[in-house]
Structure formats: structure tokens, C-alpha cells
């Protein structure tokens, strides 16, 4: 049996696993990004150096703490994190998605904070001087101007998630990880190498689809005046 024969005879399974992989990553990145962007907006401060004990001062504390915490989570080996969640969420999709969401947090939060804080001071000052309240400033000035940076964070986290999602197969999560784990555990047996190869190649296909998706999103959501 050559590789093409393998692909054609298993096309249904491969297609199914690729779709599942795509969906798991999409859901996890969607949920994770929503959380991170919302958190980033909530703890953004109007002033770069807020006075002590003011609301902004606490927000800045939460922001820095959140960044350290999510960074720490990102360094936990994925194999361990999946295993650690087993007692709580059991085998299957839930654990796969929850763990993946955790891995998306840091990159998006970091980029959201960076994007919001690097908006031109002069722009924010003139907005304030023209009578923009804080929320209006945040949502109509800061967020659109920070959006390219935020979107880049989401894009990076998506690529990372595609490979981490593979490990989800150890808790019976859906996706191409099943092919890989299967192949590796039977290495030497018939078609085992083809399974590993297919799992890897179709991860690239998923990544390519996401890249196309993000190129379109970028085109549609980045305001014309700041497009590069």
C-alpha cells in the first residue's frame, strides 16, 4: 500500500479528524480571545502612571498580576495540564477545549494590553479635550487603534493552539492528535508511519485555512485609515 492508497481509503476519517481539529481550535481561540480582550479592556488604565489607591491603580495591579499568571500557565507542559484537568472535566471534548483556552490567554492578553497602551497619547488627549468620556474613548478610539496588534496576538495563539490541540488526544479529545497518537503507539506496524505523516500534514492544512481566514478578517476589520 502506498501513501496515496492510504489517503484515499481513509479519506473519510482524515477529513472528519481535520474538521474536528479545526473546530476545537476555533472554539478555544474564540472563547480564549473573548476572555482576554474583555479582561484587557477592563483593566486598561487611562493614565500611564495612575495615582496610588485609585481605581486605575488597582486595575493596573490586576493587569500585571493577570499577565504573570497567564504566562505561568503557558509554561505548564501541555501533557501535564490535560492530565491535571481529568479529575474535573473527564475524558473528551470538554477537557480538550478548556485546556486549549488556557493556553490562548497569555498571548492575546499581552497583545491587548500592549495595543491599548501604545495608542498615541496625543490622540487620546485630544479625544479627552473634545469631550470623549472614558468608555467612549476606550471603545471608539483605543480599541480600533489597538485592533491590529490584538488580531496579531489571536493569530499567533491560533498557530500555537493547532499544535497543542494534538496533545488533546491523550484525554480522548477530538482532532488529528488521534492519528498521531495511534501511529506513534503502533510504530513499525502497517501504515503507522502514514498515520503520523498524515496527522502532521493535515495540521498544516488547518493552519493554512486559519491563515486565509485571518487575512480576510484583517481586511474586513482593520479601519482603512490605519491599514498598512
Amino acid at each position: 500500500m502506498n501513501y496515496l492508497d492510504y489517503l484515499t481509503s481513509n479519506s473519510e476519517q482524515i477529513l472528519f479528524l481535520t474538521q474536528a481539529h479545526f473546530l476545537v481550535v476555533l472554539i478555544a481561540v474564540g472563547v480564549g480571545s473573548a476572555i482576554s480582550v474583555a479582561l484587557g479592556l477592563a483593566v486598561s488604565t487611562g493614565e500611564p502612571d495612575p495615582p496610588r489607591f485609585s481605581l486605575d491603580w488597582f486595575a493596573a495591579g490586576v493587569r500585571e498580576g493577570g499577565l504573570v499568571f497567564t504566562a505561568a500557565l503557558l509554561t505548564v507542559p501541555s501533557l501535564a495540564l490535560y492530565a491535571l484537568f481529568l479529575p474535573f472535566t473527564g475524558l473528551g471534548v470538554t477537557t480538550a477545549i478548556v485546556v486549549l483556552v488556557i493556553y490562548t490567554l497569555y498571548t492575546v492578553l499581552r497583545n491587548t494590553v500592549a495595543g491599548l497602551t501604545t495608542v498615541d497619547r496625543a490622540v487620546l488627549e485630544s479625544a479627552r479635550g473634545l469631550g470623549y468620556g472614558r468608555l467612549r474613548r476606550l471603545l471608539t478610539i483605543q480599541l480600533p487603534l489597538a485592533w491590529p496588534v490584538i488580531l496579531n496576538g489571536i493569530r499567533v495563539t491560533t498557530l500555537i493552539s493547532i499544535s497543542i490541540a494534538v496533545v488533546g488526544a491523550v484525554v480522548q479529545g477530538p482532532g488529528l492528535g488521534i492519528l498521531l497518537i495511534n501511529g506513534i503507539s503502533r510504530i513499525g506496524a502497517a501504515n503507522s508511519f502514514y498515520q503520523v505523516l498524515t496527522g502532521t500534514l493535515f495540521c498544516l492544512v488547518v493552519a493554512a485555512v486559519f491563515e486565509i481566514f485571518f487575512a480576510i478578517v484583517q481586511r474586513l476589520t482593520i479601519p482603512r485609515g490605519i491599514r498598512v
Partner: protein
Amino acid sequence: MSETTDQPVVETPHGAGKPDMIVLEGVEKIYPGSTQPAVSELDLAIPQGEIVMLIGPSGCGKTTTLKMINRLIEPTSGRILLDGKDVTHVNGDQLRREIGYVIQQGGLFPHFSIADNIGVVPKMLGWDKQRIRERADELLHLVGLEPSTFRDRYPRQLSGGQQQRVGVARALAADPPVMLMDEPFGAIDPITRERLQEEFLDIQRTVGKTIAFVTHDLQEAVKLGDKIAVFATGRLEQYADPDTVLTRPANDFVSDFVGGGAAVRRLSLVELAHLELHPVETDEAGTSGATGQGTAAGSRNGVAVAEVDGSGRPVSWRHLPDRDAAGTPLVTVPISGSVYDAVDVMLDGCASLVAVVDEEGRAQGVLHWNDLVGGLRTRQGHA
């Protein structure tokens, strides 16, 4: 003037009669963590329709003062009145929508088109779309930008000078009676800055706003201001018209700040149009037709005669009283300029006299170098 005239250094010969639009009463600002007030016990009244230039060295409190007027910075104590109404405790965002605000780099929103940038305040005030669009076009026109070319562009497609014009248009959008300007021309190249200043004065003649304007450039303050407020470390040292600040500084600080060049700077206050100039006659290639302010045609004693080209523009001196006409280059200065411009032209052209010309380039009179030291005569009935 209102009841706030107890300031020690206020001299307001022109302002009398006009009601005060902006009044600061005993305003003080102490920043958190600082013991020294940034602005202390400040009383300042700006009459309606006047441009007041706030000037002083860095850290003198001029920007803090400006930003307290629209409460971008909240005063620690004191009262702020706008058009007689106490605004010290009203909603800051609402207040700021009623006050025009222009900052140094323009501060345009990069993701908004030019028309949308101009329309931000009207939009917040709930104007309908059609009216906002018409207003944006009207203002683009006012600041000298063609609406059809510029309304759909984005800030990054504009030069610094154009962006600053849009910044001014945006501040004027909802027709606020008061404008605050924080070094609006500070980051612009000198040539463009000068043009923007001229245009700014033109616009002000049309709109007649009450303007507080922060600058660190004395030249700019003298050129644009109806009054100048000189600040030193949180205190108002002198508040008077430019001429008074230059010629009669209130104290050593102001005289140091104004510096040694005061007499030269004052020249930019004297407009050529207001001066009694020496008469000039013109000759077109051989014939002797006299125009301008010459008394009698053909009388060449004591009257300068310039040779003009076909369209009436002087090209060289034909006859000059008491000097060699051929050896004196002919330089011209527009009558809309100041004596400062005339001196500049004379120095530049190594000429001891300059022909003052009107918009069409025709000679209107002559200014001699000696007039500068002999005393300039102002024309009667030409205020």
C-alpha cells in the same frame, strides 16, 4: 471688566467694554505628591473675542492653566467661569464639548476620515448626518482645504500643516464660543507655521472666538495675541497687550524673558498699511506717467521714481533723491506686511530703502532705513 480687576499687573486699555468670556478666580493647582503649587492663586479674565497668549518658560504653569479652563486638569481650588457661568463643578465631558481644543500634533483620529474627524463633536451633540457633512465641508473651506479633495482622506495622507488645519476645523465644528490651543503650531516647520499663523488670524477675523493660546515662542505671542500673559513658576507676572509687554515689562522676570530683542520684535507689530510712507512715482519704459502717492507728476525733486514693467510692477530705481539710483537695488515688500518684514527685505537685499507694493505689485510708497531710527509716522485716521 468684572469684579476680578484686582490683579496687580493687569493693564487692559483695549479690553474695556467687552464682557469677560473666560474668568479664572483664585485658581490654584497642586499636583498630588507635590508641595509646590503648579499654579497659585491665579486671577485671569479674558474678554470676549480676544486672543490671549499664555507664555513662559517650561514648567511655568501655562499649559496647566489652559487645561484647567476646560477641566482636563481639575483645579485644587478657585473658580472658573465661562460666559458668566460657574463651570468648576459641571460635568467635564459635557463642558469640553462646548469648548474648542487644539493640541500640538493635531491629535487627529487616524482611523477616522477627515470629515469624520471634523464631525466628532457635532456627532456627540446629536446633529443629524446631513448637517454634520455640510458643516465639515464648510469648515474645510474655511481652513483652506478643498472639501471634495480632502473630506474622504485619512490623517496620515495629509502633511503636518494640513493636519493642523483639520485640527483647527475640528475644534470649530460645533461653533464653540471659546477655543483653547496648546502650542498648535509648535511642531510645524517655520515657513508653514508663518502661513498658518496668518490664516489663523484671518479665520479669527471671521469667527471672533475667545481664544486662550499656549506658546513658548515670543514672536508668535506678539504676532497673534491681543494680550499676552507671562507666567513664571505658577505665577502670572504680567498680563497686558503685546506692545506693553515689550516696551514696559512689569518686572525683571518679564524683561529677562522678553530679552534684548524687544525693540526689534516690536517692529512686527507695526503694519506697513498704517504708516506714512514716502511718495513714489513710476515710469513705464521712457514715458513718465505718475501713480502711487506722488504729489505732482513729473516733479522729481525729493521724490523717488521707479521704472515699472508692463503690468505696473517696479523693476528698478530711475531716480532717487540724494543718492545714486543705479547703484541701489530695488526691493519690494507687500503692504500687508509689517515693518519687521520691510527690515528683513532691506537687510537681505542690501538696500537702504524698500518699495512698498499692493496686492497687484504696484508701488504704493517707500520706506527708508533712516525712518526706523528717525521715528515712524503713523498715518492719521487709519486705525
